[in-house]
């Protein structure tokens, strides 16, 4: 007799704690100050971006440095929906996902032909090209950018209800709405990634990452797996990008396609926390947020320090902070390993 499970005692406790945290997160706007809600919005969106990068690079072995393409195109598609088509900004976020998905198709087609470092460079080049093209779009502000029109931001669906509910001004109520959406996206993204890793496709993904050739030799369609993961991550990244710019309400090509903000920081978060584990970016984003709050005023010295820290981590703790914790304690909050448990016939009554 045998039984196969991924569950551990730690994962059950983690699951309950996660549900409790989500519940607290949902009711938080009732008593938290506006600045905390804004900080959490930042943390949640960066966390989601880092989880998505971790999915394609850490689990899928595709090291992209062009994720800003999806943030940017997603944000611009949302702006286009609002400005050109008169959509409400919130449903227009969906356009961001769609646009990122459409951009990811030619990008994957091109970049999948490249291996290793060339893949990384290829994704970055495509992101740059996309930025240059978008900067030509005059109705959306060209190279200098534009803002969401006041009419659009003043009556976003749900904002008035939130304002009345919590007795807030419109601007603060908009922050609450954006925060809830960010919380929803973060939870949905992590739940989806966790489900994917525990599915058959998760095994295929790990097999392809470990040994492409051997994976094919046991019948895994390596290309298909990579396509699925890349397109899904791009779509979600586009949604996050659109949401970030609903909150910012002002866009420019340089900001929306910033390699520093949407890829370098994101990689930093994943590397510090631990690549290839769901727990990694959660830990990483907290470290990043702490550093950002304390040192961001130091400008380029700050960036330099982040870079040094990331390189030191890669050299001395290549599996990040969570890797260190895991090695010491064996702890896994979101285990994906299928453990075979043999049940001795004789020990049964």
């Amino acid at each position, binding site marked *: 007799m*045998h039984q*196969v499970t991924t569950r551990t005692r730690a994962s059950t406790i983690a699951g309950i704690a996660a549900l409790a945290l989500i519940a607290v997160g949902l009711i938080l706007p009732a008593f938290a100050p506006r600045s905390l809600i804004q900080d959490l919005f930042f943390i949640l969106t960066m966390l989601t971006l880092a989880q998505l990068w971790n999915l394609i690079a850490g689990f899928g072995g595709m090291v992209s440095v062009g994720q800003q393409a999806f943030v940017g195109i997603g944000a611009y598609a949302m702006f286009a929906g609002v400005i050109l088509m008169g959509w409400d900004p919130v449903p227009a976020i969906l356009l961001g996902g769609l646009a990122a998905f459409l951009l990811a198709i030619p990008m994957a087609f091109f970049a999948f032909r490249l291996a290793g470092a060339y893949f990384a460079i290829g994704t970055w080049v495509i992101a740059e090209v996309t930025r240059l093209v978008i900067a030509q779009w005059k109705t959306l502000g060209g190279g200098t950018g534009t803002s969401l029109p006041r009419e659009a931001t003043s009556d976003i669906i749900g904002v008035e209800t939130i304002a009345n509910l919590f007795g807030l001004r419109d601007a603060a109520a908009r922050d609450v709405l954006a925060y809830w959406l960010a919380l929803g996206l973060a939870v949905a993204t992590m739940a989806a990634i966790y489900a994917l890793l525990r599915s*058959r496709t998760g*095994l*295929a993904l*790990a*097999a392809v*990452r*470990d*040994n492409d*050739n*051997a*994976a*094919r*030799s*046991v*019948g*895994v*369609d*390596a290309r298909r797996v990579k396509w699925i993961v890349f397109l899904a991550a791009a779509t979600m990244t586009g949604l996050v990008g659109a949401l970030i710019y609903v909150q910012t309400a002002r866009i420019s090509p340089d900001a929306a396609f910033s390699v520093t903000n949407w890829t370098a920081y994101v990689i930093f978060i994943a590397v510090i926390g631990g690549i290839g584990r769901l727990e990694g970016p959660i830990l990483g984003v907290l470290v990043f947020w702490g550093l950002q709050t304390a040192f961001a005023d130091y400008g380029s010295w700050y960036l330099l320090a982040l870079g040094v820290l990331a390189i030191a981590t890669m050299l001395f703790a290549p599996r990040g902070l969570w890797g260190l914790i895991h090695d010491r304690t064996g702890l896994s909050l979101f285990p994906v*390993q*299928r*453990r*075979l448990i*043999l049940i001795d016939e004789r020990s049964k009554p």
Partner: protein
Amino acid sequence: MTDVLTLSHVSKSFGALKVTDDVSFAVPKGQALGIIGPNGAGKSTLFNLVTGNFLPDAGQITLLGRDVTRTPAMERVRMGVGRSFQIPQPFEGLTVFENLLTAAAYGQGKREAEVQDACVAILKDTELLAKANQLAGTLSLLDRKRLELARAMATGPELLLLDEIAGGLTEGECQALVATIRGLHAQGVTIIWIEHVLHALTSVVERLLVLDFGRVIGIGDPDQIMASKEVREIYLGMEV
């Protein structure tokens, strides 16, 4: 009797080096065929052509009556070709059990839950059960060899290709693997086995093929092949 595999006039070159030179042979269903030949003769390349990891420059490969000369590797696995690599290539970040689950689920196009029992049975057969939850990257050479065999078995092969599975093992370890292979053969699996450990090979196979410089220089009854002058010249100094 139907043929599981047919190669006709198959050739493959790497640059100027002709590694497979006009190779033709057929393997009937249920047969165990041994392949011998010096290092660099092109034996592993022949496997890569059969599995679809390499495409031939010329010739035709037929699998279970279907022309698969250009068919992608993963599709051939689903048709029933399982293979082990000469240098073990485990999925190091997965456990032994997960290595088998992946091979079984994808090789047979089934859901994980449907293949669990079969994987456990294979783990028992290949003496890997005690290491089921160990990461494949941490295994010893013997266990890596066992995992190669186990993973190939998990794909549910009709044709099993084994590439020097007994090399580098002690006599006792070798015997255990041979017993497993003989068991598979008894179940009717067609086997092609490349091996330098001749006594292990000849204790299982009923037909032997000799490859030298990419050419088939002999195929037939193992005793007769081993007795032929050409083969003895090639194998002079090797264990007979």
